[in-house]
């Protein structure tokens, strides 16, 4: 989730440790330290390599085979060719693009909230905790809560009933179903992202605001000419995590809210990976789709990093 910035701090994390302490010690102790250090890192490293890194390679292998998980028949690119020519895959990709509408919505909401929080009115710290609340809840909880609220007997239809409007079947229509999943996404995400943006706002030098205020800049002018340009970097970061999230982490929402339906109208790529893997007899096809998704996300990350120049300080 916080990957892009984490990546840029690899150097920071690995550069410092060894230098300072080591040279003062005699060779024997230093050699022992290296051994103990290695033994200490090994269990964690083995588990991570065995059950995170190896599975990626294994997925690549599975994607070239026809398999039920027990017997593997090597099929070269058959799975990929079948996927790339499958109209359902095309439709699902387009559906996934529709979910991108959530990105500007959630960033806009987060931006407003962060600017409000930045004013530090009384009790802003309690508001901060409240805005963070959806983030500690399971996707299952948020998804089912929204599906219930917009269900036939749900709160929204009950409220419409008060105005004499007939209950609406939100989930039998692809577009409204997508709209409701997007509402759930915005609800779930804006608070956390507002806090990320707030951290960006806090790091702006207050003297800049003072200077602007002395020059007679109003609240809106300060927002537009000082605040926003100064948090470009954080905005870029938030934009990237949202786009990646849209392509890789909607599974939970789709699973509990619509199960991909009606038809394939709300099926996202990550949900289709699950569907093809566990509802057909060929795991290879699901694995191939996962590999395609992985490559797509990788390319997207590189492009976005270039566009926003996250590597450099500005």
């Amino acid at each position, binding site marked *: 989730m916080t990957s892009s910035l984490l990546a840029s701090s690899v150097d920071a994390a690995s550069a410092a440790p060894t230098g300072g302490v080591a040279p003062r010690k005699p060779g024997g102790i230093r050699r022992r330290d290296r051994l103990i250090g290695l033994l200490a890192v090994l269990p964690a490293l083995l588990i991570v390599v065995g059950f*995170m*890194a190896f599975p990626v390679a294994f997925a690549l292998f599975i994607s070239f085979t026809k398999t039920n998980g027990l017997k593997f028949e090597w099929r070269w690119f058959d799975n990929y060719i079948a996927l790339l020519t499958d109209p359902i895959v095309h439709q699902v990709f387009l559906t996934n693009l529709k979910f991108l509408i959530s990105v500007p919505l959630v960033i806009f909401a987060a931006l407003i909230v962060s600017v409000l929080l930045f004013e530090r009115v009384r009790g802003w710290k309690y508001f901060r905790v409240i805005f963070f609340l959806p983030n500690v809840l399971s996707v299952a909880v948020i998804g089912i809560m929204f599906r219930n609220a917009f269900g036939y007997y749900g709160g929204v239809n009950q409220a419409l009933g008060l105005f004499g409007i007939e209950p609406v079947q939100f989930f039998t229509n692809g577009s409204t179903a997508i709209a409701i999943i997007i509402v759930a996404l915005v609800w779930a995400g804006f608070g956390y992202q507002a*806090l*990320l943006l707030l951290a960006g706002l806090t790091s702006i030098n207050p003297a800049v605001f003072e200077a602007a205020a002395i020059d007679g800049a109003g609240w809106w002018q300060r927002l537009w000419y000082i605040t926003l340009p100064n948090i470009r970097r954080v905005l870029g970061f938030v934009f990237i995590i949202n786009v990646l999230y849209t392509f*890789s982490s909607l599974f939970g929402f789709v699973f509990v809210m619509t199960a991909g339906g009606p038809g394939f109208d709300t099926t996202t790529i990550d949900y289709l990976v699950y569907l093809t893997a566990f509802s057909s007899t060929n795991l290879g096809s699901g*694995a191939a789709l996962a590999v395609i998704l992985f490559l797509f996300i990788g390319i997207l*990350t590189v492009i976005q990093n270039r566009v926003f120049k996250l590597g450099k300080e500005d």
Partner: protein
Amino acid sequence: MADEDDVVISKRISSGRAHWPIFAALVFVAATIIYPLYFVILTSLRPNADYLQSPFGLPGEWTFDNYLRLIEDYGIGQAFLNSLIVSTASVAIILVLASVAGYALAKLPVPGTKLITATFVSVMLIPGPVLIIPIYVMLARLDLVSTYAGVVLVYVATGLPFATFFLTLSFRGIPDEVIEAARIDGAGFIRIMWSIVRPMGSSGLATLAVLQFLGAWNELIFAYILIPKESMRLLTPQLATIGERFLTDQPLVSAGLFITASVPLILLAFASKYIMQGLQVGVSR
């Protein structure tokens, strides 16, 4: 963190305007978060007929029936316990492995530190859906499907990269002199971990424990795929099943929602300090 913020406030220009419009706007936004939860809790405490009659008022009849039905007929109590055990076990294992590895990476001359750190960071970039199929096949081969050990293993593996990275950064703050002094007094690796790193890194450890517990408790996909047997289900898949089966019984589903959300909400109420600290790691470097 809290004190720094206060300094910032006093330094910032205050325009002298009334703050009430901003306060009102914040209250409105907070209400959009609080109200749905309030609605869920209230709905869970009334019979279905009462809900359908007037969903928005206070319940005409208060009842715990929905909770009792979920526990007695739909095994949600058992699922709650299963989730508690699996999450606690995962967090305990992650804390031990990650603090040992984090300490070594932060303070010992581990050969290949750069490569190891790069491994931990780069596996964090792997999107979840990519892992589903290979991990399922691997665990099936190891006879770990339908066992809690399998789920715990997956949670440990997916939690460790961030945990190790986080603790490496946080243990870096422990002064070398303290560790050096302990060594001169003859303390070995385990002694140093227990008597120095554990107490001095307690804040980071607490933050990590809370974050990882939330992650394991809330996880849905692997919990659903790896434990197909209904009697062994974890809480989130059980909730998903109940939500699917009882579309017409909002109060019953609401009770399930609140049971699942209760533990994270309690953690947020009592450990918000640690959760907020963990949040900062993502942005400030």
